[in-house]
């Protein structure tokens, strides 16, 4: 059977944002991918940059001096925020993957119960927790550290 012309099955990268009438969880999927790719890019650079500590205090302070520019400071904060979002949303995904948020199978008797009634609050709580961690990290980075 051919794919629907309105909502084809394979949208490629466009499908991350333009797939149709999606609920908040589908946008969390997009956010999860964006933060994941950001974290991976940063992580690969982080391995290279932090290797400078091997060459002693001069090399380390030269590197950190370069990275003390406000642009990098904001970048560091974005990485922290991406970690909070990706980590807590990932934990939600693992709970769903393991079947812990789907409930038991039951007869469909009206009014129907949906596993979304459990999954949606968990998504909201996960993002509230991520927000609290992001605020605390920003407070330390911008007000307590410097």
């Amino acid at each position: 059977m051919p794919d629907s012309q309105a909502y084809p099955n394979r949208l490629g990268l466009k499908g991350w944002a333009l797939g149709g009438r999606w609920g908040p969880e589908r946008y969390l999927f997009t956010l999860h991918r964006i933060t994941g790719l950001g974290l991976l890019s940063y992580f690969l650079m982080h391995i290279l940059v932090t290797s400078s500590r091997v060459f002693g205090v001069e090399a380390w302070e030269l590197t950190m001096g370069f990275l003390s520019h406000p642009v990098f400071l904001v970048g560091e904060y974005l990485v922290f925020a991406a970690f909070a979002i990706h980590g807590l949303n990932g934990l939600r995904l693992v709970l769903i993957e393991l079947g812990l948020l789907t409930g038991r199978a039951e007869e469909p008797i009206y009014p129907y119960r949906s596993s979304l009634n459990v999954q949606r609050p968990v998504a909201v709580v996960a993002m509230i927790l991520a927000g609290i961690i992001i605020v605390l990290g920003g407070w330390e980075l911008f007000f307590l550290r410097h």
Partner: protein
Amino acid sequence: MRERSLWTLHIAAGLAVLVLLGLHMAVMHLTAVLGLSSMNPAGHDPLAWENVVHRGQQILITLSYLLLLGVALYHGLYGLRNILFELTASAEYRRFLSIALLVVGVGMFVLGSWAALAARATALAAGS
């Protein structure tokens, strides 16, 4: 079967990353908020050389770096592989991609492990 095992490992690695990276982020970004000053005794700046040396001298921190390096590289590169697999179903492309990402992962693991171990030696020498 093989893909299912890789996917299960991806989830397990994700949970390990959440714990280990959570600890790393707490030490690097929430020292003052959480009262973890013993991890950074030279002040709230975790990037100060004295704090870098102090952490480098702790064997548990070095071991956690090595473990985090491995699980984070696997989790991240396997996730990237899944995203790139969606772009085309070509078996040849997928095999090339898998090998390329494996080479990148192993290479970064070797570099990162060397840096963590050599930095520990530097920190011990600086502290003695």
